[in-house]
């Protein structure tokens, strides 16, 4: 197993009487992409703030490649690239001037700074807009520039806090191209997002957090294994099913549970392969089938299973 690049141990943070983060622990290995998920107010941003040295932890320790994280100038901070949820750009400076500033904050200067700025702009596909002000950019372009600003000092760990908020699908794809290129370079990422499909696409390890506590710290595959249902079958029937029909569906092999909403059924299955047998049984009962679809269980389902509430509650 690769060594831990980031080690978060029993970290807590309170605001007055409210405990925002309560004994959170997890690790990020070199080359790993960790998805940090949780609903609004779960403690994600506070945790990220402490990892980046923006907030001071009340207790616990944070080590970045063996260096303790703290406020002020810190060797640990040089190993982290931070992409905040809010756009951290000066709209009245050009894209290049923004990058010069953030590069200089990490001690870069001269030819090296220029070269890093050029490379970062190319990576996020904004080289042709270097002289333009971010105020003239689309939301997606600003997000990409926000990422470029975090890459200049060649950090070992890149932390992205909701980096696709307010971005159109095309720009989102461009951002993902960039992040996948960084993954291919072997860089470690922490990715927080509301969008579970984004986290599923990128992350090879998940930390689920709610009410300031870590609920799960596993690979996606291990998390899915925890669920009794691995797939769902949605079936819209020609008429409302009787209680006897519902009991019949429930008795089919692989069916975990059945929920009814008028003539529509949501049937949770232990594996997707059972869907065909259930559909065949319904057909055999002479029940007209207007529409059906199958879906793999998502991180939403995992979160629901762990907390009893939706991620977007």
């Amino acid at each position, binding site marked *: 197993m690769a060594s831990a690049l980031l080690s978060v141990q029993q970290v807590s943070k309170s*605001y007055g009487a409210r405990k925002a983060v309560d004994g959170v622990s997890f690790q990020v290995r070199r080359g790993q992409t960790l998805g940090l998920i949780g609903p609004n107010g779960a403690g994600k941003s506070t945790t990220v*703030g402490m990892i*980046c*040295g*923006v907030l*001071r932890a009340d207790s616990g320790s944070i080590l970045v490649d063996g260096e303790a994280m703290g*406020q*002020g*100038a*810190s*060797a640990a*901070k*040089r190993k*982290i690239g*931070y992409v*905040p*949820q*809010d*756009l*951290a*750009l*000066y709209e*009245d*400076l050009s894209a290049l*001037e923004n990058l*010069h*500033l*953030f590069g*200089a*904050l*990490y*001690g*870069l*200067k001269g030819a090296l700074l220029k070269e890093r700025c050029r490379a970062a702009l190319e990576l996020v596909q904004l080289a042709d807009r270097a002289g333009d002000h971010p105020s003239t950019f689309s939301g997606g372009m600003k997000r990409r520039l926000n990422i470029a*600003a975090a890459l200049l000092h060649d950090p070992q760990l890149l932390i992205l806090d909701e980096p696709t908020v307010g971005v159109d699908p095309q720009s989102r794809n461009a951002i993902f191209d960039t992040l996948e290129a960084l993954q291919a370079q072997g860089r470690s990422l922490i990715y927080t997002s509301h969008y579970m499909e984004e986290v599923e696409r990128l992350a090879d390890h998940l930390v689920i957090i709610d009410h300031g506590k870590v609920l799960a710290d596993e690979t996606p595959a291990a998390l899915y294994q925890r669920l009794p249902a691995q797939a769902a079958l949605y079936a819209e029937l020609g008429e409302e099913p009787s209680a006897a029909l519902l009991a019949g569906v429930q008795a089919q092999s692989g069916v975990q549970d059945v929920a009814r909403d008028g003539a529509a059924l949501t049937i949770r299955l232990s594996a997707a392969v059972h869907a065909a047998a259930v559909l065949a049984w319904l057909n055999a009962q002479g029940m007209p089938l207007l529409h059906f679809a199958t879906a793999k269980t998502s991180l939403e389902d995992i979160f629901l299973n762990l907390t009893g509430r939706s991620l977007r509650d």
Partner: protein
Amino acid sequence: MTALIALVRKDLLLYLNNRRALLLHLLMPVVLAAFFGSLFGGNSSAGSGKIDIGLVIQDHSTISQRIGAGLKTNSVLKVQELSEQDAQALVKKGKLAVAVVLPEGFGERAASALFGGRGKPAMPVYYDPSQSTVLAMVKGLLTQQVMQEVSAAVMGPEGSAITARQLDQVRAEAAKDPRLAPLGDFLDSFKKFQQQSAAPDTGNDSGARGMSMPYHTEDQALSSGPKYNGYAHSFAGMGVQFILFMGIDMGIGILLARRLGIWNRLQAAPVSLTTVLLGRALSGALIAMALMTAIFLCAVLVFKVQISNLPGFIGIAACFGLLTAGFGLLVAAFGKTPEAARGIASFATLILVMLGGAWVPSFIFPVWMQQVTLITPTRWAVDGLDAVTWRGLDFAVAAQSMAVQLGFALLFGALAVWKFRRDQER
């Protein structure tokens, strides 16, 4: 050091790119200083400050004509001859501060009343109630002019008829009231004096000049520096005011950065909070110093203001720049939201500049207020700038102003850093 320079450079670029702020902080003080400067006498070479009065001459006597001519040649009056109706209308409208009427028969009756005081003529004077100070000044000048012309007429050869009439009247009254006898004797002697003055071979015309002021003043404007220029003080005051407004904008900028998350991004970089604040303070001080220099450059080139102590001016501009930066940090540290902070800070700035003598010179304040306002840094800034411009005082005076401003800058900065650190530790 690289980070600090980058932070300062960033703020300078942002300021220069913000044309609206540049316009507000540079153009507004110049426009307002030009206005206030002209009110305070401008560069005092254009003969400004004359009092406009209306003059209604209904009396065609030589005395009244001479009074009118004398008033018109007075250096502090600008006389407009009008009908009584027009004069009243202009005073009512506030277009004239004072209008003076010389009614029919005024000259003769005034001459007759010179000795004994009987039958004094009335002289109507109309005035704008908001200009009572001007009324007092005009009455003083009028008294001088009337006494001079009436006494000249009475003492001159043409005054003998008047004296003879008065003498007859006094002798008749002295028969009933013996106390008037000495006045009759005086008039008798005076009549002989008039007759002698009228003789062509005396070569003595002293009596014909009448009574005059028994002294004259020699007015000298005293300052160690160049000639007084009303614009110098106005540019100092308005410069201080609008540069402090720039300081407020600087503080609001930090509050906005905190709200938008860019502050957190700076905190995530390997630079200390002190470096970030120092960068903001240095850029703010440089901008403030550049603004003060530009404002006074305009004052020198356009309004003929003279900087009599250049090292002193540079020192005061630099210290005021640091004071502005400290003030801006204080606004950012203690302001809860940009909106609330702007309101409170603007109010505080207006009070500070008012007490600092930025609008009207502090020497106009009551004595107690002149003492109390010494606790405001703006008072020291404005007085310091006055000292190195029109007052032409030496560097020691400028150094006092610099030291006080620097003290306030350090106090504001220390308070701000303390508050920022406390917030960060929460």
